[in-house]
């Protein structure tokens, strides 16, 4: 009887779905209803950039994939990536800053995975950053105070779901459209 009560008291969880964008060359898994937006980013080195954002919200966790293109500055990818990582954690309390690696062997893409606490008790964000084939791709999952489970495995599940070798993507992944940038 107690177990039954516990089950019915749990919040309803949306199913995790797999998404793929063949044009941009990656796939990931996320729960909730995914929306597409165009945003902006500005870094001292990267300059002003339009961004493509895939965003969803589930159980008071915000999930966000951001894509920026740097085809003319691929050789500067290491510094552009470093600047993005630095700006992400600047002014926040860094809990983890570790190597990230996606794909095995010679297909490996190296990046960073960071976990930070947001100022003013606004939550905890887990993020991963990669620069590959002229694109800077970041995944960020923020557990909001309304959720409160800052050790939830869901942010890690999200950022670790990224794949660049698309044959690894599970069959039936939902195809994502790429919005046109100016």
């Amino acid at each position, binding site marked *: 009887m107690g177990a039954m009560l516990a089950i019915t008291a749990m919040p309803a969880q949306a199913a995790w779905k797999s998404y793929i964008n063949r044009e941009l060359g990656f796939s990931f898994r996320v729960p909730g209803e995914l929306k597409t937006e165009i945003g902006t980013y500005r870094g*001292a*080195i990267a300059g002003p950039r339009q961004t493509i954002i895939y965003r969803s919200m589930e159980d008071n966790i915000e999930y966000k994939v951001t894509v920026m293109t740097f085809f003319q500055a*691929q*050789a*500067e*990818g*290491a*510094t*552009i*990536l*470093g*600047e993005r*990582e*630095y700006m992400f954690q600047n002014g926040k309390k860094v809990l983890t*800053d*570790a*190597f*990230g*690696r996606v794909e095995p*062997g*010679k*297909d*490996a*893409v*190296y*990046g*960073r995975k960071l976990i930070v606490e947001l100022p003013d008790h606004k939550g905890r964000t887990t993020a991963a950053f*990669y*620069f*590959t084939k*002229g694109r800077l791709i970041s995944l960020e999952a923020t557990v909001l105070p309304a959720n409160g489970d800052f050790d939830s495995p869901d942010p890690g599940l999200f950022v670790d779901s990224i794949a660049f070798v698309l044959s690894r993507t599970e069959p039936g992944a939902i195809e994502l459209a790429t919005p046109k940038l100016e």
Partner: protein
Amino acid sequence: MVIAALAATSAPASAAWRAYISHPLGFAFAAPGELTMEKGTYRGIVAGERDAIIYRFADDNIEYKAVVIDLAGKSNDAATLLGEAEYLFQEDKKLLMDAFGRVDRQYGRKLTADLPNNGGRTTAAFYAINGRIISLQATVLPANGDYDTPEMGRFVDSLTFFTVRAPDDAIELPEPPK
């Protein structure tokens, strides 16, 4: 007075630090001791085999080296290749520090690790610029034993990519033999 004089005479003789510059490679740094240069090969699973130049110094049982890895033909993968080089540096070592590095508009990483089997402590900085990975690495050997020496930090932090920042008397680094 006697104590001070004794202390002064018992301190190990340290070589003077000199500034070095490479205009073709676009960087400068400072190091103590005699310079030796060698050609080498860097290997990474993603990078494959890459030509490398190593500028090496030794002083007071600290090894200093500036490593230049040629990314010719793969410079568009610099972000991943830099990450791989950093990863390989710390692999199988006890990582003590892994932090942002930033020099002259270039972002990289600075790492400190203890070597296996009490082999010493090494501090390194890694940057990717102009189709090359530039890494400065300083290793305090057990014979020195002062693993908190500021000399490691002095070496890796002496790096500059704005060659106008190098001292006027900086010594031009030799180019590797063809």
